């Protein structure tokens, strides 16, 4: 079991190392002649006005909240799905009630207009 995670760890290091090495080697081969105009922020030839790191309205933060609900739901549902074959009908019905409550929550969010993109 532990060696499984050792393999995953090694794989993670290797898969981070390969693109990093490629980018590093290409950096050695590539020319380096920066100048002010070349390094300017690209905006279709216009000069950029102000910074991009400003406060603004993230339109989708309600989507993010609904997503959070469903993500947590799946954390509960996956153990249930693994145990499904050993379960009685009662256990299945309980999970179905759980899913139906979430479906109700989705319809509530829908009615409240949380799922509209403005």
């Amino acid at each position, binding site marked *: 079991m532990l060696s499984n995670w050792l393999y995953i760890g090694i794989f993670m290091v290797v898969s981070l190392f390969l693109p990093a090495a490629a*980018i590093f080697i290409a950096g050695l081969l590539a020319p380096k002649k920066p100048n002010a105009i070349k390094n300017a922020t690209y905006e279709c030839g216009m000069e950029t006005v102000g910074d991009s790191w400003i406060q603004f309205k993230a339109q989708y933060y309600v989507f993010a909240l609904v*997503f959070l609900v469903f993500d947590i739901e799946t954390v509960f549902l996956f153990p249930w799905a693994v145990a499904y074959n050993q379960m009685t009908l009662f256990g299945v019905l309980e999970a179905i009630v759980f899913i139906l409550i979430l479906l109700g929550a989705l319809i509530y969010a829908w009615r409240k207009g949380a799922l509209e993109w403005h």
Partner: protein
Amino acid sequence: MTFWSDPDGFLANWLIHLLAGIGIPAGVAQAIGFALGAAILATGSLLFVLFLIWLERKMIGRVQDRLGPNRLGPWGIFQSVADMLKIFTKEYITPSGADKVPYNLSPILTVAAVLMVWAVVPLAITVYGVNLNVGLLYIIAVGSLGEMGILMAGWGSNNKYALLGAFRAAAQLISYEVPMVLSLLIPVMLSGSLSMTQIVVKQDIWYVLYTPLAALIFLITSIAEVGRAPFDLTEAESELVAGFNIEYSGLKFGMFFVADFLHSFTISLLVAVIFLGGWRGPGAETYPLLGFVYLVIKTSLVNSFIIIERASLPRFRIDQMMDFTWKVLTPVILILVVVTALLEKTLVMAGALAWVRTGIMFVVNIAILLIADTVVRRHLARRPRPDVRGKERPVARPENFFSQPGSGA
């Protein structure tokens, strides 16, 4: 144990014995074996991208009545090698306002997030990186690392187009993750395991026959997760010039490109493994390499479907795209999970055979798909269409179409 019955174990044993022969302890030898295996798998899949890029260009060329690349090598197959060599010698242009750490980290992270999926996918009966007992959860978790990379690219570039593209990408990816994860519940329910190898072993009948609707929803949402047409709003050329990767150049841009193609192949692989029976096929148990060939064929079919679909469909608008996942896919997959859970349990208690259950579930799935389709069509027909005409513009309307103004004719 011979090479033909267990190639992976045979090579691993041979390596460990070889290393033990020169006095390296077994634990270290195993770690070295792991590192070599990981390096071979990761490098192999990265080099495979060169072939994938050629294949996609060739197929899209055919769809659009062109030849596609045809100069370098037979059928132009070395075109991507030449492209790669060229991109290696391109200058890195870092915008002066960029936040260096996320800017440089994000291409690496984007590729790594896709590569790490390959660690748990079984390529044949004994050939897999690792048989993790929570493999499916691991794939979901690692897959969502990619959106971190996109957000870092958008934020780090300090460019307004890049930022907008990244926020669109985040909204799209989190929205499509909900139906994708829910559609994976059904294979887990049927196989009773989260391990990828177990899911393949349990597929005496392919799950695509048992639950075609879940397979379809998984395919659609996976395409959206990759950000391919018709869901390629993150890099909409006509609106955001290139989206989150606009400020990247040279191989840093190339890495986003590689991640895109590799990701699309990886989701084809996942569809093949989870729904199309993976390496299962006649004779695959005794000869694992034959199973590998079956898997490659199934994956290529799904990948070809994705390429042709990319060439044939127009892009969604962003509100249509969000509506599609939250108001169509999510309710449908929730209802499908409920129906499958109830029906499967009842049928098993009634003692129905596997083939009978599959037939009933197939019909039920198609019925749900048709009902959902009808409901959506009715709704769209009833909704008033907004009038999108602009204000009247002066248009040149010559009285005689064949005369040029001022020509005297």
